[in-house]
């Protein structure tokens, strides 16, 4: 029984990380109508940056803040120089250009950090184990759940309660009208892209002490993010959260029984959702 509880809690942690990756992909698709195949690569870069930050300063907390900000800045630069040139092109072209970006990031990461994976340990204050009755659980993993939940809340507040969020939501409906009403949509797009990609970077930093850092993980992460976004519904915040948790828990519970089966199931579910309900659980037609 405890084993299953353990797996479910693990799954929630994994699901929150998947949420952080997917919500950015989803918002970017919703507002910019842009398909970002480099999303997994930015996750990877975030994880590697946190590795470097930790090995230089020895301070995980610093890495947790600095690495995602660097990723967001880098994403902003990418958007200003390259991505904005592709918005008007069909999705096919967007996919190919970002696939190219993903390849470059991956290869640069390998050139800098080597082809063999890296690992970082959680901060000393979270190395312990939490005990509730006869249930033991690593503190760091609980921290990931709590921290991701706070970030989720902040993102929700940002999207739902601020002027910026209102513009993002309005722009997702009709970017042209928002632009006609006097908003600099270019700036809105850049900030949203940086925010979405920064969240993927943050996910990379949070996941690094749990899953390690492997240079070829980008496409896998991207695949899972697409599964989450499709199941939840493109452009939906709630969808990314629920989808992330479903995928995380399924993967975690299945991991002891039949790990390839978990992948078969989630990709099967993705195909099923697209065929039967293309707008996902929470998306709108």
């Amino acid at each position, binding site marked *: 029984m405890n084993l299953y509880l353990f797996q479910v809690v693990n799954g929630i942690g994994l699901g929150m990380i998947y949420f952080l990756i997917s919500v950015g992909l989803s918002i970017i698709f919703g507002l910019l109508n842009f398909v970002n195949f480099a999303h997994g690569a930015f996750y990877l870069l975030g994880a590697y940056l946190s590795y470097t930050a930790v090995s230089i300063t020895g301070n995980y907390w610093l890495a947790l803040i600095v690495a995602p900000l660097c990723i967001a800045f880098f994403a902003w630069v990418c958007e200003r120089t390259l991505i904005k040139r592709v918005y008007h092109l069909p999705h*096919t072209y967007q996919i190919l250009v970002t696939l190219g970006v993903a390849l470059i990031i991956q290869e640069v990461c390998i050139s800098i950090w080597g082809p063999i994976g890296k690992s970082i340990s959680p901060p000393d204050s979270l190395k312990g184990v939490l005990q509730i009755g006869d249930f033991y659980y690593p503190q760091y993993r609980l921290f990931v759940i709590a921290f991701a939940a706070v970030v989720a809340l902040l993102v929700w507040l940002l999207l739902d309660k601020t002027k910026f969020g209102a513009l993002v939501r309005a722009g997702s409906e009709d970017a042209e009208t928002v632009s006609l009403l006097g908003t600099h949509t270019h700036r809105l797009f850049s900030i949203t892209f940086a925010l979405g990609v920064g969240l993927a970077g943050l996910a990379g930093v949070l996941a690094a002490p749990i899953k390690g850092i492997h240079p070829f993980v980008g496409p896998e992460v991207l695949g899972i993010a697409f599964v989450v976004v499709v199941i939840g519904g493109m452009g939906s915040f709630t969808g990314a959260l629920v989808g992330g948790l479903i995928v995380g828990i399924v993967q975690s519970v299945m991991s002891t029984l039949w790990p390839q089966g978990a992948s078969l199931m989630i990709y099967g579910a993705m195909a099923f959702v697209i065929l039967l309900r293309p707008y996902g659980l929470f998306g709108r037609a």
Partner: protein
Amino acid sequence: MNKSTSIFGGVTIIALALIVLMPILLPSVTLATEILIFALAALACNLLLGYTGLLSFGQGIFFGGGAYSASLVMLHLDFGLISALITAILVGASLALIVGALAIRRTGIYFVMLTLSFSQMAYFLAYTFSDWTGGDNGLLDVPRPALTLFGITISDLQSSEAFYIFVAAVFAIVFVFARRVIHSPFGTTLVAIRENEGRSSAVGFSTNHFKLVAFVISGAITGLAGALYAMLLNFAPLSNVELLMSENILIMTIIGGTGSLIGSIFGAGAIVMMGDLLSSIWPRWMMILGAALIAVVLFLPGGLWGGIISLTSKLSSIKVKKNLTSEVTK
């Protein structure tokens, strides 16, 4: 029928010349064989992407399916060369029929996502059924049977030169067939679907039917390429069905030039050669691939072949201008 569209016209001659020149100019015949095999896969991908406008991340399914099925019937059922290749063609076509029939129910990004999910499922299925596929280790000891026609053994294909000639012959047949397909009314309808699906369907074409047939042809050719690749390597690795294989085939198609069959030879050639020549000097050569992909999409939509065409037409227009000015000065 003008010169450029006739079966044995201009482009076909260039393709044949390339087939003859490649083993002479390249450092090894095996490299040339590999290029032609991937050119087949890229050509098949081109039928979907370049002519029908379908971006499929599922080409690895057909490539791996062809490799596995041909290897299995040769290993377990003692199939000969031709019958193993026909098996691969049929398996590639059937897999494409299944994937295509489901994927074409959606368009745009959802179509791409569907092919992506099928590709991932195929990989994990191949991994799970390791009794048949060898799992991570791949299928080992895949034979390369002799070429026998009507009971007469023409060649045992064991030397790399003999196998190259065989692959080149297969490539030439497929190339001529593919040109026949794209210049037929069927092919022009595919282009019409790529350009404007709504209008094509409005004038009475059942577009899904056409897309599905394009898928099946593409799957059949890709399956054939996969089988030849297994025979070349004597090995059918799991990486054949990986998403990365689908991506590689796509990248070859795009860099070579979408919408030109001959571009597929250039695309496959460029990438296979880069992989072979650069990987020992600079293992991170894939970085160039990423940059090339971006550059082609943004600046050179016709790919390498499109670049060659526009370059030659520019050169000839310069010549014409020179002639004109010299005439004027006279």
